[in-house]
């Protein structure tokens, strides 16, 4: 197994910290190495929609100055990249959509501001499914991102660019957003660690909204330790986000450990059902067995409403989409069709030409669900089911501390294989959606391979108890070597 650090850009955030603090390498050198790597690899992977070369070098020089003046911090001088729905002042932010063509936000998302304060270096913006709607990144209006493990397969989505960039070693870490699994599922498919924090844990200010009551920003990293480091920087109450929680942010990194004695791991029968690829199920079951070997106690739990989560999600999320996306009308920013003779025609042709098929499908479903006369039957009922799903998790967490399941029912699938069948695509998120609906944290950690492609294990935790899932995932990761494997592509690109 090849896991020694061959090139700095293949290292973890923790490794880079050591190199930077020991002055073996400057942030500018590190950043240049990443930029070279992006140049070498990204024609094939296509994680990036924008590479901010000049800004990156500026940030790196700034970080070097800060380090020279004695400052340090986990992310100071570390190169990273952001999903292209996180607002970056003056830098194109497309949300993977034609409708935001030419749009440069006038302000920074809170997470970006926090990363900048911590001294992280912005390499660029990452590809995604349009408005984060999709599970393969094929819905991007800008590019098709490939999975670094097999360029003919998808990286998952919607944060496909964020996952592929980390897997390909194009960034030390990235941020994605997760509404129904958009961080965890691509992390699983690309063999990296993906964390969806508790709803309210990380400020959404500056995150271009998909479904406001579900969206949450999370890190994609090579290791659980890195995930804890990044979360500590981006988490916490934000006066600009009224839904961000005032719950105190612990030092997630300090709480990591390798002993799982006393930890109760719930195994829900509803997550081990027909439809999951046998190779995936086998890897996840082996992962759960490993948790037991580390001292955890396995508990059978039941989450009976799991089967309703997906359909409920496809009422609530589109309803919010239909509302959130009504601002894109061609009047203020982004794309405007020249075909309209009057206001209504301009609206219609702008939105017709500016949005892709999946986005339009969800706007229509959501508009219908909120329409007078249908609201009670759809939206209101879906909210009731959501309450039920939450209650079932609460009940399960009285018997266990962490719930383990597959992250995705399948490994990465071929590009184009599911685009004609939206329902098959929606099933990619069947195991990630329930935790989203309940607003609770969940992490995907690499747990093996099936057909040569990575498999992820999902660990779900109690609200605001990221520390426990990080601890379990970290202990697991330290006792296995899955996270050290790298795609061939990465080695072939050299370092």
């Amino acid at each position, binding site marked *: 197994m090849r896991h020694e650090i061959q090139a700095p850009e293949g290292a973890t955030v923790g490794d880079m910290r050591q190199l930077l603090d020991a002055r073996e390498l400057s942030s500018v050198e590190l950043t240049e190495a990443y930029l070279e790597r992006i140049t070498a690899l990204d024609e094939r992977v296509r994680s990036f929609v924008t590479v901010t070369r000049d800004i990156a070098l500026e940030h790196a020089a700034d970080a070097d100055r800060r380090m020279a003046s004695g400052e340090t911090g986990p992310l100071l001088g570390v190169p990273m990249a952001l999903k292209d*729905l*996180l*607002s970056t002042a003056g830098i194109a*932010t497309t*949300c993977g959509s034609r409708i*935001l063509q030419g*749009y440069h*936000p*006038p*302000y920074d*998302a809170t997470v970006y501001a926090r990363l900048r304060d911590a001294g992280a270096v912005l390499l660029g913006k990452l590809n995604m499914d349009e408005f984060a709607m999709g599970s393969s990144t094929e819905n991007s209006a800008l590019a098709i991102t490939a999975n670094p493990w097999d360029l003919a397969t998808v990286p998952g989505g919607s944060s496909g660019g964020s996952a592929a960039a980390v897997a390909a070693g194009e960034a030390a870490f990235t941020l994605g957003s997760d509404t129904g699994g958009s961080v965890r599922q691509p992390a699983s498919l690309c063999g990296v660690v993906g964390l969806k924090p508790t709803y309210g844990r990380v400020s*959404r*200010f*500056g*995150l*271009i*909204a998909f*479904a*406001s*009551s579900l969206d949450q920003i999370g890190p994609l990293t090579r290791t659980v330790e890195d995930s804890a480091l990044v979360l500590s920087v981006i988490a916490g109450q934000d*006066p*600009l*986000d*009224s*839904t961000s929680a005032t719950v105190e942010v612990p030092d997630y990194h300090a709480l990591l450990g390798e002993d799982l004695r006393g930890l109760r791991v719930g195994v829900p029968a509803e997550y081990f059902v027909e439809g999951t690829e046998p190779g995936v199920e086998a890897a996840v079951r082996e992962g759960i067995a490993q948790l037991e070997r580390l001292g955890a106690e396995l508990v059978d739990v039941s989450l009976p409403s799991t089967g309703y989560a997906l359909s409920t999600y496809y009422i609530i999320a589109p*309803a*919010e989409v*239909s*509302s959130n*996306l*009504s*601002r*894109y*009308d061609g*009047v*203020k*920013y982004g794309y405007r069709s020249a075909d309209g003779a009057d*206001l209504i025609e301009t*609206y219609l042709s702008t939105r017709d030409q500016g949005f892709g098929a999946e986005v339009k499908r969800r706007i229509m479903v959501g*508009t219908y669900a*909120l*329409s*007078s006369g249908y*609201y009670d039957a759809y*939206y209101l009922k879906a909210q009731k089911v959501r309450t039920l799903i939450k209650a079932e998790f609460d009940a399960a967490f009285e018997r266990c501390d962490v719930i383990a399941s597959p992250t995705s029912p399948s490994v990465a699938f071929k590009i184009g294989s599911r685009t004609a069948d939206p329902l098959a695509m929606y099933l990619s998120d069947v195991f990630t959606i329930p935790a989203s609906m309940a607003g609770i944290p969940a992490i995907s950690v690499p747990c093996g391979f099936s057909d040569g492609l990575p498999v992820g294990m999902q660990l779900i935790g109690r609200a605001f108890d990221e520390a426990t899932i990080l601890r379990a995932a970290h202990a697991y990761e330290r006792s296995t070597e899955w996270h050290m494997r790298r795609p061939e592509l990465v080695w072939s690109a050299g370092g």
Partner: protein
Amino acid sequence: MDAQYEPVIGLEVHAQLLTRSKMFCRCGTTYAGAAANTHICSVCAGFPGVLPVINEHAVELAIRVGLALNCDIAETSRFDRKHYPYPDLPKGYQVSQYDLPLASRGYVTVGNGDDCQQIGIVRVHMEEDTGRLLHRTAADGTVYSLVDLNRSGVPLLEIVSEPEIHSAARAREYVMKLRQILRYIGASSGNMEEGALRCDANVSVRPVGEQTLGAKVEIKNLNSFRMIDRAIQHEIGRQSQALANGGRIEQETRGWDEAAGITLAQRTKEYASDYRYFPEPDLPPLTVSEDRRKAVLGRLAELPDARRARFISQYGVTADDASVLTTARETADYFEAVLTHLGERVPARLAASWVTGELFRLLNRDSLPITETRVTPELLAELVGMVHTGEVNRGSGRMVLEEFYETGGSPRAIATERGLMQISDTDTLTPVVRTVLDNHERAVAEFRGGKQQVIGFLLGQVMKQTRGTADSGTVRTLLLRELSEEPTKGPVPH
């Protein structure tokens, strides 16, 4: 029209709240006269990714209004999104309150005495204002529109009345009363010309005696009291006439054409928007604890009706003066400040008449608000005190007031300088009286001939000689004394 139809009117009043910043961002609200789009930010311009943060002062003012309108304040209310596409609405939805408004079930009292009526308030809810469109025509004739978002996100209250109003005059009276209350508690400027107070009226008519309501017509954007009066009046007539002619009233939205003096159809119910309300996921529910409600109640200013009643009972001012003095809070505050400076020795009634009479005459002449006059309560109190003690008479007092109204300065100094201090001294006045009698022998003769009323003429002459400063009582006594002391100069009266 004729008395066979009874109008039923309900009003929806939108009031801009008097906050320094907008409802969900920190942009300022003093954009009047500013260039377009100079009071905007990413939040009120609805840029992608922004989130609302509620203005706590707007909530405070809204609770105040709810309490002043005798409403129940909801412990938990909620914001909802109201969707409709229009370029003045940058997010494509307006954040409003739908099924859980902040305040509900209140009332407002209008009219006096037998004509007094309590008009029910259905609900009071908070929402954000929209931007504005400016329609232009280019040199080549192309019509285009510009969007100004300065107003976008300004906090509004919507106050919905029960359909309990039965005349245009009462509707107008109701809105005036609302405005008075809003101004009293500092919740809104209530300025209709600036759009800080806007009114939509729901008007229907039904045959007298009928219990069910007729089809409702909504008249939008009644932006002055005159418009409220005229538009509702016209609409009642139009509907009554239509029914009398055997027609039917369509439920629809109409607008008021000020020039033509008629209401015009805008859209019928068939085309009514489906606003697709749903709870605003970016804002947590709004909770108002019992403690907070009580705290706001404690801070609430005395309302106009209560103040008027107190002025009558505590100060003994006339009902009419009390009404005038309490119309605006600033006037009532002014009046009470005058009383503070006057102290107990001078009757409040006298001060009231100086405020509502002499001072108001000048202020009205110059359209000057009472808060901007040079006549401070302290100075007016000084003058009223001088009138009360007889140092100046009322007429001289008026001249003194006019002078310090224009230039400022102390009333006493002006009265002294201008020689307007009242003369009650008999040694000073006796020679003047004698001179007048000497110069008007005919009048004196008439008086002695029994024509008692000539005394008035003679008194006037003395006042003229003293430029109005003589104390008329003293002059009258002196005149009578002089006239009776010199009987030899004319025929004996008896």
